[in-house]
Every structure is written in structure tokens, then in C-alpha cells.
């Protein structure tokens, strides 16, 4: 699932395939742009988005897909996604660029279409055969009955040969390695039903199970298709997130010009330009430029670090103020971003031991059915010494016990639950994630980027005189540093107007300076303005005389964070906060949210170890985190959630991805998961009850094709309806 493993695709970077040195601008004529629109939900949204996009010059067509929450745009080659995103943001929709190349797998969804064809053929054939069977049940006899049976056989045999192929393939795969799975009893039931029915028909017998074999295939394919769709939606959305990653970098050529290349084309020793706001594509050393780096995704610390030539950087760090030139020392798979994969692999081995409810049921069920059927065959054969009767009864037992409802029990529920959660902005990536989520009793949060939005907020606006604030605002407006942006926003909201500061200039890595009434004024790092650096995030203002004034910042809470923590605690779950940030910052946040247990300055290994300890104590841990330092912990936890803003590595390691900004769906998801698991268990119970009624009849030799059809259809329909109650 990682973008790095994939070869550069033609749609994303047409130049990369043929000639890697060509700049990205030489795209094909009609550039196809894909945008992710997590906020759209109604018919008015579709119209607005399509109208706004179509009204933008250069855009030829725009079509919204509401199911995938995505817009596909045909536009002139000079139109880029960055030009269209502001258009939609003005209209009130959050939009993100997608790499159309990474989406192609879901566009040409061959496997899904294939399954749908098989489902259609099975449905068509089963309805026709069922009609013929109804006339047999209602009294057709002799030659008419034989004719109906032969017509049924003529429809059934090719239909089964086509539609039941997935089951044949899976059963063969399991048998060839000497294991049993759910498909083995299915295939055995279908084949045995066909063989006995053909034999019966050729002997002008009364009972043929052609309709049962087809209905069985139809219901089971319906289950498979639901399952497939749920996963396809999750996969396409996960692909979408991968497509959001920055796959490009600016490489400096020998003559000093910049060229845009795909990250996968970078080599060790290349000089790479990283603009302010950009993310480091490689590990390396700074050769030119001064700036500050935001390492919060890697370490969880919120205070930016000062960077100058000779300073080592890691892939994933964000450059804040000045342009930097970096000499690559490790690229692609060797970057520190990827080395974390080892930690993840170790941590994941613990989770793979989870057995899903369906597997548990199959393990009990598959041998049971075979034994029961074999016993009834043996019993009847010994009793009557008639192979035909014995085979007929064995086939009836297999058909009636066939896991029709069992095959629908889990997919129907997970489809309903995933659909419900998807509408709330949660993406269930892993098939058993819901079951595991329902068992959670401890929730571990990461701080930076998870509970906090990663954007700072000014906390001590009131401590300053308005003269100081006016100077600070004037200086802050000259910079795009996150602290300056936060200061500007807070000051503007308080109605402050900027003072007249001349000769404004930004000193990358240090701050902004200017001249105010003949005095030099500075806003920036402690050492630069002559103050001492504390543990809190702070920008200092020096007005040329007296002590510098500190502006304190705290990380803004993510929307819904407080509600999510409160709701989780209310539902009796233990909430922990584990962060790589300093103790002061973590304690402040823990108190603000009412979290009693917190750990600060935790290294990635510490986080994973802490989760492992909790697991050993018998706790089922839900880990919510976004950074690289959380990745191992995400993989080690019983179930994990990461926000869409997280690094690719973290999202890959987690089971559920939060698509929006809001954290409040998390407690809701826990409730839905509990309900879903309860429905799955209920469904198993319903299926068992039907079997308990019908199996004795079958073993006693009283089952007719009519009873088999009734038991099968009614249990499947009950199970599906029960699952739908979840929506």
C-alpha cells in the first residue's frame, strides 16, 4: 500500500517513465485531476462543486462521485490541482489533491465487476430454475416433471460452472495445502447436489436439488460481493490517502537550476531544494540555508528545531521558514521513515493471532457438517443397503446445513456498519477491525497531531500592551512561520492594527526583524533576541529596549478531541496519553482534557513497549496516533486509528483511518462496533436455529427440495434483515 513501492505511474508523472529528467510540466494535453472531497454529502453539494469547477477557466468537465467523495476533472494542461483547491475552499468544501495514478486500481475495478457478473448469472439461473421447481412442487408429475428437471439441469450446469468458480478455486487452494475452509463444504454440497440430482433425473426420480444448488451459489455470491465492496471502498479510500502524499521533489542540476522529479528517482548525493512548508523527501545533511524544522510527525515534539548547514535531517520533517538545500544520504527504502518498518513488523506479529468470529464459526462448523453428512450416509446405507437413498439423504443434509446464512452473517453486518461509519468519516481498512474495536477497554492517544491539530494557538495575548502587540503583529505578518501565523490570527481577532514597521525582513531560522521609530525590533527565537529558551513553545519580541516579551503558544486542540475523550471515559474506558513531547506540554494538555495517566518524552520503542505491557495485563488497547513515532505502537495495539493527516507509514499500520478533522466519531465507532459484533453473533444464532430445525428432518430422510429451499431462503433473508437494522 505504500506509494514508494509502486513504480511511477504514467498518469501521475508522465515524464518519469520515459525520461526521468523531463520536468513535470510536460504533461499530456488533457490533464486529469482527481480531488478528494471529504465534506460533500448531498445533492446540493454535487451541484455546487460541479458548477464551481466548471466555472473555473481552463476546466472542461468536472464530475463528482458522491459514493467515493471524489471529483474527477478534465482540464487544460496548465491547470493544476492547487489552482482548483482554493476555488472549492471558497465554496466551503475541504479538498485535497489526489494522484490519479494511484487511483487507477479502483477505477478499473475488474474483480468487482467479475463478481457482479457471476452474481447476476446465478440470480438469473436460480430464478428460472426456481419457477420450474415451483411447478414440480405443486404437482407436476411423470413426463412433465422429468422435462422440467432436464431443463433445470440444462440451465444449472453451465450457470454453476460459471458462477461458482470463486468457490471452486478457494476450496482447491485450501485442499491442496491440506486445510479446510468454509468453501470446502460449500463446493462439496454443490457438487454432491448436482450429481445426485442428475442421477435422480436420469432415473425419473421425484427429488432434484438443482434449485437449491443455484440458490446456494446465489446467496453465497451475494455475501462475497458485499464483502468485496466494503473492502473495495476502504481500499480505494486508503489508496486515495496514499495518493495525497508528496511524490515529487526539487532536484538541483549541475548548472544550478531546479527540476521537479519523482521522489523515487532521487539518488544518494543528489542536492535537493526544500521550500518553506515542504516535507523532506530524503535523509540528508543541509548544505545551504537556515531554517527551522518541525519534527512533530517523527518525534512528537512541538517546538521547532533550528537548522543550519551541516545539520542532519530525516525524511518526513517539515521545513518551516527558509529554503534549504539538502544533500541526500539515504533515499527511498533506506530513509529513517522506512527503517521504522522493522519495528512495525515485530509489533504486528502479535496481532495476526486474532481469529475472527467467522473463522471460529467455520472451524467448528466445517468438520461438523462433513461428519454429520457422512454419518447419515453410512447410517442409511447400512439400514437400507440402497446407495441411491443414502446418497440422496447425504446430499440433503449437506445442502440444508450449507453455510448460506453463515456466509452472509458477517459480510452483511460489516457492510452495514462500515457504511454507517464511512458516512461519519471513518474508514475501516481491516476486515476484522470492527470485531477488535468492540473489545477495546483502554484507549491510548498520541498528543501532537492527534489530540492537537498541529497548529499553534497564542495563549497570553492579554499580558501584552497594545503597543507591543501592534509591533508584534506588524512583524508576524511578514512571515509564514506557523507561530507568526497564529500570532497574526489572534491579534487580528482581538482588533489590533499593525504598527508602522519599516525595513521588514525575515531571517530564516531566527525570526523577523524591522525598524520601528528608529529602533530595531525583532520577533523570533530566544537566543536571537537575547532571552533564555524555556521548555514551552514561545516567540520573543524585542522592542530595542528593556526585557524581551514572551508570546506563549500551545497546540490548538483538534475539533472533537475533548468530546471524544469525555465520551470514552464516560463509557468506562481507560484513557491514556503517551507523547514524545516535553513533560510540561503533555501535562498541560492532559489536565485540559481530564486525562489522569500520561507519559511524556516517550521514544517510539517506549510507546510500543507500553502498549505491549498493557496487552500483557489483559487490556485490549485502542491506539490513536499519527506520527512516525507512533507507528510501532499502532501496529502493536489490538486495534488502531490514525487521522488522515498522518504519515503514510502510520496509516498503513492502522486499521481505521479518520477522514475528517474531527475526533468525535471515535467513541461512536466503538459503540457501532459493539453493536455490529452483537449482530454477527445474533446472525450465527439465527443460522444455527434454522439448522437445528431442518437438520433432523434431513437426517431422518424427510427433507424435500421444498423444505431445503424454504430453510435456506428464509434464514438468509432473516440474517440480512437483522444486519440492516444497524444502518
Amino acid at each position: 500500500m505504500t506509494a514508494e513501492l509502486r513504480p511511477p505511474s504514467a498518469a501521475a508523472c508522465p515524464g518519469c517513465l520515459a525520461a526521468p529528467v523531463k520536468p513535470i510540466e510536460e504533461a499530456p494535453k488533457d490533464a486529469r485531476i482527481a480531488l478528494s472531497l471529504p465534506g460533500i454529502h448531498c445533492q446540493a453539494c454535487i451541484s455546487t462543486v460541479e458548477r464551481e469547477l466548471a466555472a473555473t477557466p481552463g476546466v472542461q468537465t468536472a464530475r463528482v462521485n458522491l459514493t467515493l467523495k471524489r471529483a474527477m476533472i478534465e482540464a487544460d494542461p496548465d491547470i493544476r490541482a492547487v489552482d482548483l483547491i482554493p476555488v472549492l475552499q471558497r465554496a466551503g468544501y475541504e479538498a485535497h489533491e489526489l494522484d490519479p495514478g494511484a487511483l487507477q486500481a479502483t477505477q478499473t475495478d475488474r474483480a468487482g465487476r467479475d463478481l457482479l457478473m457471476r452474481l447476476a448469472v446465478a440470480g438469473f439461473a436460480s430464478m428460472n430454475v426456481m419457477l420450474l421447481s415451483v411447478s414440480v412442487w405443486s404437482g407436476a408429475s411423470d413426463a412433465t416433471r422429468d422435462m422440467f428437471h432436464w431443463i433445470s439441469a440444462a440451465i444449472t450446469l453451465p450457470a454453476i460452472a460459471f458462477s461458482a468458480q470463486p468457490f471452486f478455486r478457494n476450496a482447491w487452494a485450501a485442499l491442496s495445502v491440506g486445510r479446510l475452509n468454509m468453501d470446502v463444504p460449500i463446493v462439496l454440497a454443490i457438487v454432491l447436489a448436482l450429481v445426485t440430482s442428475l442421477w435422480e433425473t436420469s432415473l425419473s426420480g421425484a427429488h432434484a436439488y438443482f434449485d437449491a444448488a443455484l440458490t446456494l451459489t446465489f446467496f453465497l455470491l451475494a455475501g462475497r460481493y458485499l464483502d468485496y465492496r466494503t473492502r473495495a471502498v476502504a481500499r480505494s479510500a486508503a489508496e486515495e490517502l496514499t495518493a495525497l502524499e508528496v511524490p515529487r521533489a526539487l532536484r538541483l542540476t549541475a548548472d544550478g537550476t531546479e527540476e521537479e522529479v519523482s521522489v523515487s528517482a532521487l539518488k544518494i548525493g543528489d542536492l535537493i531544494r526544500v521550500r518553506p512548508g515542504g516535507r523532506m523527501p530524503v535523509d540528508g545533511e543541509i548544505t545551504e540555508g537556515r531554517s527551522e524544522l518541525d519534527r512533530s510527525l517523527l518525534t512528537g515534539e512541538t517546538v521547532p528545531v533550528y537548522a543550519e548547514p551541516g545539520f542532519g535531517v530525516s525524511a518526513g520533517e517539515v521545513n518551516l521558514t527558509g529554503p534549504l538545500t539538502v544533500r541526500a544520504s539515504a533515499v527511498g527504502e533506506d530513509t529513517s521513515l522506512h527503517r521504522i518498518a522493522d519495528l512495525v513488523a515485530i509489533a504486528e506479529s502479535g496481532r495476526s493471532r486474532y481469529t475472527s468470529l467467522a473463522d471460529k464459526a467455520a472451524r467448528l462448523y466445517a468438520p461438523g457438517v462433513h461428519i454429520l453428512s457422512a454419518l447419515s450416509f453410512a447410517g442409511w446405507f447400512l439400514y437400507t443397503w440402497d446407495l441411491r437413498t443414502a446418497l440422496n439423504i447425504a446430499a440433503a443434509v449437506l445442502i440444508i446445513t450449507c453455510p448460506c446464512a453463515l456466509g452472509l452473517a458477517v459480510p452483511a453486518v460489516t457492510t452495514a456498519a462500515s457504511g454507517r461509519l464511512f458516512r461519519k468519516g471513518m474508514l475501516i481498512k481491516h476486515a476484522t477491525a470492527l470485531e477488535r474495536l468492540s473489545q477495546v477497554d483502554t484507549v491510548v492517544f498520541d498528543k501532537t497531531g492527534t489530540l492537537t491539530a498541529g497548529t499553534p494557538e497564542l495563549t497570553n495575548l492579554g499580558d501584552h500592551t497594545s503597543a507591543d502587540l501592534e509591533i508584534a503583529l506588524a512583524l508576524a505578518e511578514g512571515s509564514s512561520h506557523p507561530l507568526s501565523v497564529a500570532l497574526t490570527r489572534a491579534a487580528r481577532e482581538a482588533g489590533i492594527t499593525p504598527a508602522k514597521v519599516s525595513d521588514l525582513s525575515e531571517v530564516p531560522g531566527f525570526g523577523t526583524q524591522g525598524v520601528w521609530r528608529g529602533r530595531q525590533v525583532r520577533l523570533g527565537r530566544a537566543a536571537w533576541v537575547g532571552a533564555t529558551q524555556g521548555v514551552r513553545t514561545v516567540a520573543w519580541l524585542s522592542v530595542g529596549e528593556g526585557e524581551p516579551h514572551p508570546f506563549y503558544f500551545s497546540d490548538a486542540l483538534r475539533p472533537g478531541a475533548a468530546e471524544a475523550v469525555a465520551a470514552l471515559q464516560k463509557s468506562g474506558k481507560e484513557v491514556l496519553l503517551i507523547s514524545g513531547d516535553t513533560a510540561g506540554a503533555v501535562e498541560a494538555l492532559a489536565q485540559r482534557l481530564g486525562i489522569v495517566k500520561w507519559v511524556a518524552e516517550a521514544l517510539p520503542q517506549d510507546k510500543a513497549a507500553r502498549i505491549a505491557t498493557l496487552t500483557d495485563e489483559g487490556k485490549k488497547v485502542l491506539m490513536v496516533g499519527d506520527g512516525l513515532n507512533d507507528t510501532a505502537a499502532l501496529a502493536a495495539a489490538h486495534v488502531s486509528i490514525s487521522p488522515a493527516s498522518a504519515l503514510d507509514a502510520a496509516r498503513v499500520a492502522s486499521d481505521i483511518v479518520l477522514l475528517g478533522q474531527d475526533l468525535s466519531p471515535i467513541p461512536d465507532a466503538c459503540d457501532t462496533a459493539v453493536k455490529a459484533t452483537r449482530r454477527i453473533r445474533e446472525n450465527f444464532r439465527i443460522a444455527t436455529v434454522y439448522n437445528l430445525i431442518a437438520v433432523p428432518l434431513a437426517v431422518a430422510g424427510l427433507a424435500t427440495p421444498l423444505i431445503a429451499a424454504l430453510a435456506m431462503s428464509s434464514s438468509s433473508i432473516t440474517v440480512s434483515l437483522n444486519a440492516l437494522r444497524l444502518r
Partner: protein
Amino acid sequence: MQVLSYLIPISLALGGVGLLAFLYTVRSGQYDDPEGDSRRILSDEWDDHPKP
């Protein structure tokens, strides 16, 4: 019972037409955006003339 000899082929053929129609809708991607299509019909934007 002579009627069966042509009624059965006719009913099978009619069913086959339905099947082919369904396969056509699958192949032309009419199930790609069920949510959106169910909402688009409520829009009065292109009621007077089709979208160009």
C-alpha cells in the same frame, strides 16, 4: 401441455433479455456512484435540457 413447448423458451428468452440488460449496466459503469445517482435525480439543474 403443448403450450409448454413454446412458453418455456419464451420465458427463458425474456429472462435472458433481463440478464443481458443487467450485464450492460454493469459494463457501462452505472453502479459506480449509487449514492450520487440517487441524489442527482433530485437536482432541477438540467430539467429543461440535457447537460451539454
